[in-house]
């Protein structure tokens, strides 16, 4: 010690400056401490102020680390950087970061890690320098990732297991075409722990941004630890700007330094929305957590892909084939075809005997199934030759879904009114469309008219729709009241305003349709598009009319229960319901609270 003092006494300020100047990185210093410098010369600042404040002279040397590792240096009062350059190097004082924790996690992390109980040294941590520095950084309004990256470099890499944080990455994925990734795993930690995920560039995503869910398996494995730890140990962390094969690592800070907890390479996630959803649905969660996860984690990822898909679809070539001639139609009847085309003839036998349909409307079939194109070409000719009812066939290249197909049909429609009709809806007799048109024309407060639809057995399929809250799942669903009853038991026997009506058969004016920009194509596969359209109209001040005096037959589709059937289709319903709710919960709640006033 004394020797050092003696030597330093011989050193002039000038010599110290020149030794430091050789290794001083002015560019780095200016960039890092730009605000503090305020125009001063970086080297001057470092020598006079910076070194005492712990400002680093270059990217590779940390003043704080050096002083922490070698407390004797701080006692000397010598500039630590100079100390290192002039003495420390020769004395073998190692400033290089310790090697990263290479310990591999066992295949069964729960069993393995469960054997370590968490030491309660939280107090030590909260009083540690690292914690204070990290908190200062994180809580600072001017926090930047760059600052964090810079600071973390100075923190010692600790190879021992973290004393009270356990974590494991179960999977990490990123879509092939897109930068949004998702990390799935669990972290057992107290709320004040500092835990983050790093990509290969060292960019951190903090655990505070994770969506936390309860994990019963982890809870049971670490039962005794959970009196200090957050109960929801499961983590779903959206990670931005990563690429496939990139390694993601979870780190946690302790009083001793940075601990590497778990790493995983990001896998490919199919960017086809339905395939992506299929994978996402494999992430286990409690039913009550599902809607939150769907809204906050899945939808941002899916929306990106659905929007991308829609942009591709919009550029697809469209073919149109006209059978027979139509002049100045008043109503365009738009019928998407998917899966089956034999329904066409079932409808045609009704259309052919309806003079209003034949003289005032144009029929537009939208082929929404590439496998039907060839079959339909043959059938269309046969049907036209037999019935001589004019129609148009539009094919948009790919499957566009219910909304996309209907929108495509509307693009090729010339009527002032649009009737959207499912291919499995069949008129019972002629004269069904005129009363619908009449109801729409004479009730300007209505934006859409839908008839009563009956099952093949004659019982009610559609008598208007209402929104019903499923508190077990936390979503509003579209409920069909009075379904299955004899129509004479329907409490509505005349035109009635309803919160929503079915899209299986609805009449809307071209003007209103355009005003709400048509059918929303943001849902996955299809659900809720009809109520979405109704709510868009409602937002513009137009209600939905249910016209029970007009009855058509609607054949039954496969139905899906919302509980007890954990299949893909059920989850899609909940997924779409969560989007529907995100868009419309205010309006729906208003409808539920004061139904008669709101619509």
């Amino acid at each position: 010690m004394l020797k050092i003092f003696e030597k330093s006494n011989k050193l002039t300020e000038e010599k110290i400056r020149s030794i430091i100047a050789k290794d001083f990185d002015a560019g780095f210093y200016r960039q890092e401490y730009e605000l503090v410098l305020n125009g001063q010369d970086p080297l001057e600042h470092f020598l006079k102020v910076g070194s005492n404040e712990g400002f680093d002279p270059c990217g590779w040397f940390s003043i704080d680390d050096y002083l922490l590792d070698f407390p004797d240096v701080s006692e000397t009062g010598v500039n630590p950087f100079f100390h290192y350059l002039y003495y420390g190097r020769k004395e073998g004082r190692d400033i290089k970061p310790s090697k990263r924790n290479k310990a591999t996690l066992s295949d069964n992390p729960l069993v393995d890690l469960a054997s370590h109980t968490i030491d309660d040294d939280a107090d030590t941590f909260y009083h540690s320098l690292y914690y204070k520095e990290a908190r200062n950084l994180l809580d600072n309004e001017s926090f930047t990732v760059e600052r964090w990256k810079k600071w973390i470099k100075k923190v010692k890499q600790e190879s021992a297991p973290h004393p009270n944080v356990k974590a494991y990455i179960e999977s990490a994925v990123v879509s092939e075409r897109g930068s949004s990734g998702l990390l799935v795993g669990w972290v057992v930690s107290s709320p004040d722990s500092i835990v983050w995920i790093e990509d290969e560039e060292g960019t951190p995503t903090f655990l505070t941004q994770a969506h936390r869910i309860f994990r019963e398996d982890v809870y049971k494995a670490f039962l005794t630890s959970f009196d200090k730890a957050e109960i929801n140990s499961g983590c779903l962390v959206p990670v931005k700007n990563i690429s496939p094969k990139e390694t993601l690592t979870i780190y946690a800070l302790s009083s001793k330094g940075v601990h590497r907890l778990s790493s995983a390479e990001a896998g490919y996630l199919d960017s086809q929305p339905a395939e992506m959803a299929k994978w996402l649905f494999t992430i286990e969660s409690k039913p009550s957590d599902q809607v939150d996860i769907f809204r906050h984690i899945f939808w941002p990822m899916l929306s990106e892909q659905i929007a991308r898909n829609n942009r591709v679809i919009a550029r697809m070539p469209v073919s149109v084939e006209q059978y027979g001639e139509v002049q100045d139609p008043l109503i365009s009847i738009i019928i998407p075809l998917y899966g089956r085309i034999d329904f066409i003839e079932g409808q045609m036998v009704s259309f052919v005997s309806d003079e209003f349909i034949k003289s005032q409307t144009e029929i537009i079939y939208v082929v929404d199934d590439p496998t039907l194109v060839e079959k339909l070409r043959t059938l269309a000719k046969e049907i036209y030759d037999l019935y001589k009812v004019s129609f148009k066939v539009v094919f948009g290249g790919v499957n566009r879904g219910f909304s996309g197909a209907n929108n495509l049909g509307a693009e090729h429609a010339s009527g002032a009114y649009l009737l959207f009709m499912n291919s499995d809806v069949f008129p019972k007799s002629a004269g069904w469309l005129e009363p619908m048109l009449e109801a729409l024309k004479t009730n300007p407060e209505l934006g859409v008219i839908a008839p009563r639809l009956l099952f093949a057995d004659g019982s009610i399929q559609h008598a208007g729709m209402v929104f019903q809250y499923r508190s077990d799942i936390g979503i509003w669903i579209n409920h069909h009241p009075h379904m299955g009853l004899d129509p004479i038991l329907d409490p509505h026997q005349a035109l009635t305003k309803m919160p929503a009506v079915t899209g299986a058969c609805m009449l809307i004016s071209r003007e209103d349709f355009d005003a709400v920009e048509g059918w929303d194509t943001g849902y996955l596969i299809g659900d809720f598009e009809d109520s979405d359209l109704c709510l868009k109209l409602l937002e513009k001040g137009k209600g939905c009319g249910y016209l029970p005096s007009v009855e058509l037959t609607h054949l039954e589709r496969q139905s899906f229960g919302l509980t007890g059937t954990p299949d893909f289709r059920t989850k899609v319903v909940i997924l779409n319901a969560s989007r529907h709710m995100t868009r419309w919960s205010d309006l729906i709640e208003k409808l539920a609270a004061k139904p008669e006033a709101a619509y």
Partner: protein
Amino acid sequence: MKNRILVISHGHPDFSLGGAEIAAYNLFNAYQQHPDVEDSWFLARADRGRGATGQIRKRRENEYLWEQGIGDWHLLKAEQQQSLTTWFTDLIQALKPTIVHMHHYAHMGIEFIRVIKQINPEIRIFFTIHEYMAICKHNGQMVKTGEGHKLCSSESYDECHQCYPQHTAEDFWLRKHYIKSHFDLIEGFISPSEFLRQRYIQWGIDESKIIVIENGQQDIETLPPRELADGETRNRFAYFGQVNPYKGIDVLLQALLSLKKKQRKKLVVEIHGANLEQQTGEFQEKVKEMASKLIEEGCLRWVGPYRPDEQMKRMQSIDWVIVPSIWWENSPMVIQEAFVAGRPLIVSDIGGMAEKVRDGVDGVHFSAGNPVDLGIKLLNLSGNSEVWDNLRSGIEKPINYQECALKHLFFWGLKRYEC
């Protein structure tokens, strides 16, 4: 005010031909024809091949099907809970029944009782009990689980736990507590037999709230006796119904095998039974093995299943009907049908069978589950036409559908009067 009656059954005879659903459906039809009834409907649980969706569909005028199921067989809770407060509620609100006459809750769940009362506490609920489901978790059979099909006479939490080790005695207390709370909402109970009535009184139903009304039968002339050829005796016996281990078909076959071959030659047994193929492999094999030997000898004819409208024709060509069940039964429909046809019965001497068939008056009892006793009785009866004539003349004609409906209306009217 005239009654508006909704009959609820766990099955529709269009799809399922159990005694309870047939009885329920016949009552529904009888209600519809009665001048004091404004309207009546039939709601039956059905499996339409797509599982319990919770949805309701119209079957035909005034008839509905409900795709419901059981989600919890211990507490008998419905699978589609959501359906109770939506479509089922819509139906009750739309039909506005004054009386709900339920015949079961199996396959539908017991909650609908509470739901009906919540919709309108004025709706009066009556329940015809066809089995012992509330008393016994073992399919309402009151037969112990495990080997031997031992009969059980009353519920006890500890004994139920022994039958179902996975459920504690306390679980059985909870089960009864839960079921009973729903039964408390029911105004009156109807039992087709005194035997079943007593079991439920023992279990906890107030005896003033439960009466016996026998199931109604079709109103037809008694069939003439089977014409006998010269020297022929009343030696044709027949079994009608499901073929399952509780129905004692194996007891019947063993009874035949317990006789000497020479003795067997004196009689013929016909099996008019269905659903053997749905039973366990072991039971099927046992029955088939015994049957094949007897069929070869000619003393057994395996006639197979029949439609309800074929039954009387089949009864015309036999003399006796055998009901050899090894469980208590309630009021087996086949006993009443045999009485309609004028055919004396040979039945197990337990439960509903012993009650409905009077030994030496309109039939003969044998020791339940005892093939030797049954064998001797078959042999003796087959050679004695005089006994047959006496027993036939002792048969009293069962009540018909209309009389049965009237008894119900009287029960309800009386209750209302008391209120």
